[in-house]
Structure formats: structure tokens, C-alpha cells
């Protein structure tokens, strides 16, 4: 006889949901500092049809290891599948899907904005409010450096766009976990 206490009811089983999380994800990836590693990662994203929102690469305190920080949209992509595929790359050492509330994320952006004698001071004032820095002033343009979370940079962009945004460049986010624990 089947002992019902010992046996699992199939109806109780729930499939792993949350494949599409519907939010932005910041993945912090430690990789071996070897030629071609970034190509392997970007190639994997292309082949599997994943779209990277931002990507930044830099050294760590260990010269044999680099850190890649990339952001992607969990509404569009199954994050679980992305991280599992990344883990299969031999040069990938560690992947952390950073919890937004447990993470400090920063991005740097440079804005080149058109100006004349009158609007120049208005833009400078805006930069001050955003704790930005004016890094270059020309006769017809001004360059402002803003550091912060993505939302802050996007807010500044909305404000200066009416003055005539000549060009803008963003680094993509870098992120680190809060507290004593390593990212």
C-alpha cells in the first residue's frame, strides 16, 4: 500500500516561477583577466538573444582578475538562464545578481550642452544642484560631469535637453554590495 504520509502529492509541486522578474538586474561578474573574455561574454549574449543595457569593465585589486558590471532588463530576459549560461564560460569565476536595496550603484556621465552668455549660468546652477562639476567651458558650449544613480543622470538629462544637448556619454553602472561582505 502507498503510505500517503511518506509520499509527495504531485499537486503540491509548483514550478519554479519568476523566470522573468520584471525588474532591472545588475550583474557583477568576476572574470579571469585573459584575452578574449569580453568577446566570449558579448558573443554569448548575442547568440542567446540577450540584450545588454549597460556594460563596464575594469581591473580589480587582483591584477589576474577583472570585474564586469552589466545591467539588463529582467522583464525581457530570463535572468536565471542568463546567469547559468554565463557560469558555463570557463573564464567566469563568480557572478552576483546584486539586490537593488543592498547595493550602491554609480554611473558617470558627461553632458556637452549648447549655451550662450545667459544660459551658461543657468546650466551651472543646475549642475550645482545635482552636485555635478563643470569640466569645460567654451564660448558656445559647456561640459558637465554628473555622477550618481541612473535616475539622477536621467533627470539631469531631461533638464538640460531643452538648452540643446550636443552630446552625452555614459559609462554604464558600476556597483558594489553594501556592508562588509564582498560583492
Amino acid at each position, binding site marked *: *500500500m*502507498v*503510505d500517503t504520509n*511518506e*509520499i*509527495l*502529492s*504531485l499537486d503540491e*509541486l*509548483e*514550478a*519554479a*516561477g519568476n*523566470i522573468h522578474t520584471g525588474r532591472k538586474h545588475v550583474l557583477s561578474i568576476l*572574470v*579571469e583577466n585573459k*584575452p*578574449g573574455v569580453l*568577446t*566570449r561574454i558579448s*558573443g*554569448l549574449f548575442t*547568440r542567446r538573444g540577450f540584450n545588454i543595457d549597460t556594460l563596464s569593465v575594469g581591473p580589480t585589486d587582483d591584477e589576474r582578475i577583472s570585474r564586469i558590471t552589466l545591467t539588463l532588463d529582467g522583464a525581457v530576459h530570463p535572468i*536565471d*538562464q542568463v546567469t*547559468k*549560461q554565463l*557560469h*558555463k*564560460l*570557463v*573564464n*567566469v*569565476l563568480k557572478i552576483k545578481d546584486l539586490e537593488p536595496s543592498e547595493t550602491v550603484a554609480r554611473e558617470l556621465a558627461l553632458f556637452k550642452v549648447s549655451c550662450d552668455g545667459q544660459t551658461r549660468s543657468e546650466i551651472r546652477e543646475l549642475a550645482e544642484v545635482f552636485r555635478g562639476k563643470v569640466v569645460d567651458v567654451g564660448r558656445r558650449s559647456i561640459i558637465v560631469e554628473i555622477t550618481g544613480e541612473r535616475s539622477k543622470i536621467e533627470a539631469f538629462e531631461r533638464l538640460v535637453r531643452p538648452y540643446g544637448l550636443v552630446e552625452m556619454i555614459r559609462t554604464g553602472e558600476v556597483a558594489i554590495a553594501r556592508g562588509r561582505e564582498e560583492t
Partner: protein
Amino acid sequence: MRAVDALMECLKAEGVDVVFGYPGGANLPTYDAFVDAGIHHVLVRHEAGGGHAAEGYAKVTGKVGVSFGTSGPGATNLVTPIVDAMMDSVPVVFFTGQVRTDLLGTDGFQEADTIGITMPAVKHSFMITDPRELPRIIHEAFHIARTGRPGPVLIDLPMDLSKADIAYERVTDVHLPGYQPRTTGNAKQIKQAARALAAARRPIIYAGGGVVAAGAADELRDLVRTGKFPITCTLMGLGAYPAPDEQWVGMLGMHGTRAANYAMDEADLICAVGARFDDRITGKLSEFAPRAKFIHIDVDPAEISKNIPAHIPIVGDAKQILGKLVDEYRALETDAGRLDPWWQRIHTWQERHPLTYEPGDGHEIKPQSVIEAIYRVTGGDAIVCSDVGQHQMWAAQYYHFPEPRRWVNSGGLGTMGFGLPAAIGAQMGDPERTTVVVTGDGSIQMNIQELATIKQENLPIKVVVLNNGYLGMVRQWQELFWQERYSHVDMNTFGGEEASPDFVKLADAYGIRGVRLTEAASLEDDLRAAFEAEGPAFIDVRVTRDEKVYPMIAPGEPARNMVG
């Protein structure tokens, strides 16, 4: 010693006894080292043949296959076997020559960006930049190729570095911090899987190529028999469970049996082992197995919940996990009688829809009957290497594999031209066993040059061509789904004359005995005579021209709507 001599030492340390390759300019140093290495190098007639031969060897032996090619076109010719090995998880290490380092990036003669070209299709690859690293990298390559989910690894070796003098010391361990495949499955999950199997009223075990790769056939059989479960295998998994067995319900998928596909459709629990829910298995994904919960056992975590969300995922080596799963299942008090109604339902399907085909007129040879005849002539005990197309499906349906590593085919990539060279590797891996190539008049012409390799190595391979003068599978699709608008599938008639070569004469030109069979009545005797004669044989069987593979799940349809 030279780096290439160290390379030979590393191959020997890895237990490599045979390799398949083709020399050229950039790998001259490697080929110089072969002269004194004491390793059996098989000279194929095209690099792709060498790559597929290495795959065939790996599939039959479970060991790592090894293939060599030169730079540029030698390497690009290896791309197909590399992708093939990736899709079917075959452990092969590919060595490609590369131009001198001072020519790299200058479009030198026979330069190609081999690492770049192959990057999306390898499990891993290494560009040699320091010849002293070569021995360590070779052992890392073998380790990566054979462990976890097996796959192809490529080593690109620039010519000048391959000649460099290095101090060789035998490498005894590998250091790959980013590569640690999981082997033991989670004990709690295994226990949960056992309880789910015990609760199921309509369970089915769905086994794939991963069971073969893991050497887990014994454990699989143990589980299936202990639980009295019905079992189906994928195209890649054939032989993982002995086909002539009453719990075997046949292959599943596009050309699987109705019993297997209907059982998947009505199951309340599907236990997938080393299988990946490929589109040829599921048919219309949204209507696949709508009532089922899923246990998914796989060594590659990325396969789990990729296509079908798993209720009980278990990551690890199938051999270990199945062993523990049987123990856990035995520890439960189960009532095998609970499956009686389920088995009755399956038996009804089996009786109502056996694999069958219309008999011929007594003279014409039905292609399915050729496979049945091969099965009888070889006592079901041969290695069957297949190409890709209708003949592949008939071989899968009508040759009932009793053991794993007897069925060698290109499943994932579907590479025409795979069968003949793969048989070279297979025969060398298991020299005593009858090795048969089942191919078509389309596929065979994609790597027919390897007949010369068979002759040179004196391999007793039996090549059976199911010759219908058509690219039969494409023709079948044009007939069924493209309103019989036949476009470039007729290989036979060109201005009323036969356009295909006279295969018997062609075989003869290669020094291989050829025979043409056209009469159904004497088919089996003729086949037996050709198989029993010593040495290789090339058997051109003229079969019914417009025969179709049935049953079939039409593309985009759910399994329950099988036709034919």
C-alpha cells in the same frame, strides 16, 4: 624538447592511441613530431572527415577524440565537426595550426581567426601565446572536454611557438578556478523526486544522450525496472535502455512512436534524465505534456528550466543521481499495481499503433525493410553510424539498440556527411564489432572521399546506401507542407539520365567491393553475403523512391496530433 614533442607526450599521458587529421603548412612541426611519436595518426581526406571520425571514436569509446588540422582552410573545415560536437555534447579536442605570431593579424597566407570563428561553438578554446604553457593547456583541454557536460575544446597553436624549445615536465593536475562542474545531486531533491515518482499514477521516464555520456545505463535500467515505469529515449539516447524490452515504449519526438508521444502527452509526471526538451521532442511547446509535473536531472544547470520549467530540478552526474534515486525509491512503500491502468492505456496504444509500413509489391525494396534486414543479419549487435535524413529516422525506428554507444548519429546539428567518417572513428574505437553506415544517396556524397581512408586503414566497414534518388526528407516536407512543389530534391534524373554516380563503380575505383541490390526477395541473403565477406563493402540498395517517414508530429503541432 620542442613544444610539439611535448604535445605528443601529453597525448600519450592522456591515453590517446589514435588521432585523426590532415597536415598543412602551419602544422608542419606537429606532423614532424608524429614521425617519432608512436601515436596512430589516421590520414583522412578532408578535415571535416577527421573531426567527425574523432566524434565517432568518442561516441563509441566514451574517451576524448582528437583531431588535427592546419591553419586557415584546415581550421574552417573543422567548424562543422566542432559545432556538431557542441550540439551533441561529444568530447573532442581539436588542434589547429596557426600562422607565425609575427604574421598574426596581417592576413598572412592561410591565416584565419580560428579562435574568433569557433568561439560561439566550443565548450572552451585556448590560443597558445607562450609555448611553455602548452602542456598544462592540453591537459586542461582534455579535462574540460571530458568532464561535466562533455564538448569540444580547441587549441590554436602558432607555427613558431610550436617549434620553440621548452622544458617539459609531466603535468599532474589542472587548475581551473572558473570550471567546477557539479556531480552529486542535491540529496533532498533526490528524495523529493523519489516521492514524486511513488505518488505518480501516470509516470514516464524520458532519457536522453546524457545517460549515455554519463555511463548511467545500468542505473537507468535499475530505476525503470524497480518502479515498473514506462521508458522512452530520445534519438540521442537510443541504447541507454535496451530496446527489445517490454517496458520500452519506443523513441519519442517528431518520428517517435505514438505510444511514447501519447504517454508523454497524458503523463502526470515526466522524469527527464540527460535530455533537453528539444523542439523535435516537444512539438508545440505550449501544448507539451499539459498535465505533467517535471523532474529534470541534468549535469548542465543551464538546461534546467530552459524550455520547460522543472518542478524538481536535480543538477549533477546522471550515474550518481540515478543510483541514489533508486535507493530512495526502494526505501518507500510503493504499490506497483497503481500503474496497472496506465500500462493498460499504453498497451492499447502499442497494439493500435505499432511501427509499421505498407509492404511492397514483392520486388521493390522498402527502405524500412533494409534496416530490419540489417538488424537480423547483424544479430542486433552492430554499431550503426547514420547520416542525416529519412534513412536516419528509419534506422532509429527499426534497429533496436540493446546497449549504449552502438548508435552514432548527428542529432542536434543534423550534419549530412557525418556517417561515413564517424564510422571510421567508431570502428577504430571498437575494432571487433561489425560497424555499419546507414546513409542516403544525398548524405554519402558529402564526405564520400573518406572511402579512401577506409581503404588505407583497411577497416571492414559496411556502407549501406538507401538510394531513392531523392533528398528524401526535404522531398517529404515539400510533399506534405509545401503543396508538392518539389524544388531541387531530385538527385536522379537529369535530362532523363541518371545523374548520381554509379556507386558500385565508384566503390570499385576506391578499391572497395561494391554491390547493387534491387530485388526484395533476396535482400536479406544478399546483405548477409556482403556483410560476411571480409573487408569493407559498399552496398547500393535501390529503395522505394517516394516512401515517407511515419508517424510524424507536423511542425508546430502538439504530439497528440501525430499523423501517418
